[in-house]
């Protein structure tokens, strides 16, 4: 859905000297199914994930909610399946799974990844990154180290944007009202772009910013960190 984010992750990691692999068999972590109540449907996706990624040194995921799904629910799901081997594989694999910004700040201990991004940007703290992964100010520290960036703080930065997966369609009115609060705050910053560690929130926020014809973009954190001087962005 968001190829630019994937490409950006590859660029940043390669720039830092890492070898990136993309197991072609990967699909989806199962979050939407699990969180909507279709837990049985999510089980095979857990097995698939483990089969695809076991053996990796580190699994880097540019979506905080997917990582939260894995950390918070995979061990329980494996237990429910009563599959000893799978439980062992999950326990072995999970400590190697990182959200992208987390990999940079906690995994590699970096803040400055040599990025250049000459734009006015505001950062939205996605709920799962904030409360489940406890990313704290990691993403902001990464952004602050970007050359050329004009970073402005978002009012109500920790307020949910109202996406919540199927919540956005099941409770469209409430979700829309939450989203309106978020876009109002974004517009107040006069930023050219709103960034976050999760494309689902960004797709949601962008949907309203586009509908309102604001001209403000959303861009994943990885795409900002992939920015380089002399390269058109």
């Amino acid at each position, binding site marked *: 859905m968001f190829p630019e984010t994937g490409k950006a992750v590859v660029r940043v990691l390669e720039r830092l000297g890492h070898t990136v692999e993309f197991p072609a068999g990967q699909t989806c972590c199962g979050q939407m199914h699990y969180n909507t109540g279709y837990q049985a449907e999510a089980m095979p996706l857990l097995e698939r994930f483990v089969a695809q990624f076991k053996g990796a040194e580190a699994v880097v995921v540019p979506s905080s909610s997917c990582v939260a799904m894995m950390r918070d629910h995979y061990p329980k799901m494996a237990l429910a399946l009563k599959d000893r081997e799978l439980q062992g594989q999950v326990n072995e694999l999970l400590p190697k799974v990182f959200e992208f910004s987390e990999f940079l700040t906690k995994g590699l201990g970096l803040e400055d990844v040599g990025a250049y991004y000459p734009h006015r940007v505001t950062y939205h703290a996605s709920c799962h990154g904030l409360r489940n992964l406890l990313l704290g100010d990691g993403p902001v520290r990464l952004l602050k180290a970007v050359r050329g960036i004009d970073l402005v703080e978002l009012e109500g930065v920790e307020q949910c944007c109202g996406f919540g997966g199927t919540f956005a369609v099941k409770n*469209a*009115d*409430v979700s829309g009202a939450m989203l309106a609060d978020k876009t109002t705050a974004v517009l107040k910053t006069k930023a050219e772009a709103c960034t976050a560690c999760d494309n689902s929130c960004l797709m949601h926020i962008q949907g309203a910013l*586009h509908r309102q014809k604001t001209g403000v973009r959303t861009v994943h954190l990885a795409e900002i960190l992939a920015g380089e001087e002399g390269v058109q962005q």
Partner: protein
Amino acid sequence: MSGTALDPKTAPTFPMAAKTAMGDTQLRKNVRHATDVIQAKRARVVGEMPDWQELREAGKQVRQHTMENLDFYLEEFEANCTRAGGVVHWARDAEEARRIIVELVKASGSEEVIKIKSMTTEEIQLNSALEAAGIHPFETDLAELIIQLGQDRPSHIVVPALHKNRHEIRAIFQREMNLPELGDQPHDLADAARMFLREKFLRVKTGVSGANFLIAETGGVCIVESEGNGRMCLTLPETLIMVAGIDKVIPRYQDLEVLLQLLPRSATGERMNPYTSIWTGVDAADGPRVFHVVLMDNARTEILADEEARQTLNCIRCAACQNACPVYRQTGGHAYGSVYAGPIGAILTPQLQEMHYAQSLPYASSLCGACYEVCPVKINIPEVLIHLRNKVVKQNTAGVAGFFDVEAGAMKAMAMIFRSERRFRAAQRMGRVAESPLVGKDGWIGWLPGLLGGWTQVRDLQEMPKETFRDWWERRGKNGN
């Protein structure tokens, strides 16, 4: 707002009720203002506690341990309360509790009762049962008084009239207390309420209350409050009738050390609430001469039996989760169709209905986790919400009717796709074909059909990318970069 009670059995679904509630801009303003104020106060007094996280963990441990040994502590409470002169009654459900209380009031010889704010009495709709039996209940908590006089319904478990501002409250008092000249300053309103209530406190011989904590070790009961009206109800009447859910018990007196640090800070943003009453049984020299405790189950045993949902019962009813919830803050409490609104309501209400009603409530959340973050006893509300959603889905997809369920069908189809790389690739290609009639010139979709229409109410959707990451990755591999 009508005077009909909030009843999950007859309430509209959450999305419908929320839509109506959100049309009331005054209500939304009031809710937002009040929750902002309480949240800021809470953040301040929580911030000054260096061991807040340890306290939360201790609170969780106390509550979890209690629930694991609930039968033991309930019997211990019963024995100790009885020894101290209290009379303990057991009620299986709301109906039995109502019947016991009505009989006890009648036996006390009074046709009126003064009441302390109690969400448990709201849960069992006690007031209408009392009225039907010819007994007049007077609410003495300021917020509950406003609700009662305004024929309104509670919208918050700590501040039931949170959805009203003081101008609206003045109008209610002017009308119902016959005080056309009443001012709208907080002290004007408090004075009016005091005058109105004093007379009831001195006259009415029977009191009805809920409880914050039942102390198994001593048989004592603890009530925390802000106004002192509660203490009037606890000390002046001759007969005191208390109703409490069986989840309200705690093992030891000493556990209050933890819980009374957590509760006021989380509930009203105070280091300590102004009035904390703890008493044990009856005393010939002071207070009520007759003291009844009605211990009510009302589906709590069923919740206890569900291992994954059991933590719901750890709740100490502080409402911090309501104040923090971005959904509650948009809709206010009435949309939940239950006296328990907000995140705790979304998990507690359907379970109190044994999942027969209020099935839309577990979905009334974006799972943002703000509730879990503030909960003083660390109830993982998002986890329980997901667990309850799973129960709802199982209910709905059982039997033949489920076969036709559009959502379930779509979910199953998507799960099939995600289970195979080949199908996933095909779906990505197909997606572009399928969406193409909907995509505008600028690459955006402004209208979606059916279930997805909710999305395009206020949002557009970008078309799927021409080249997926997967295609790019493979092309790049072939080109050697």
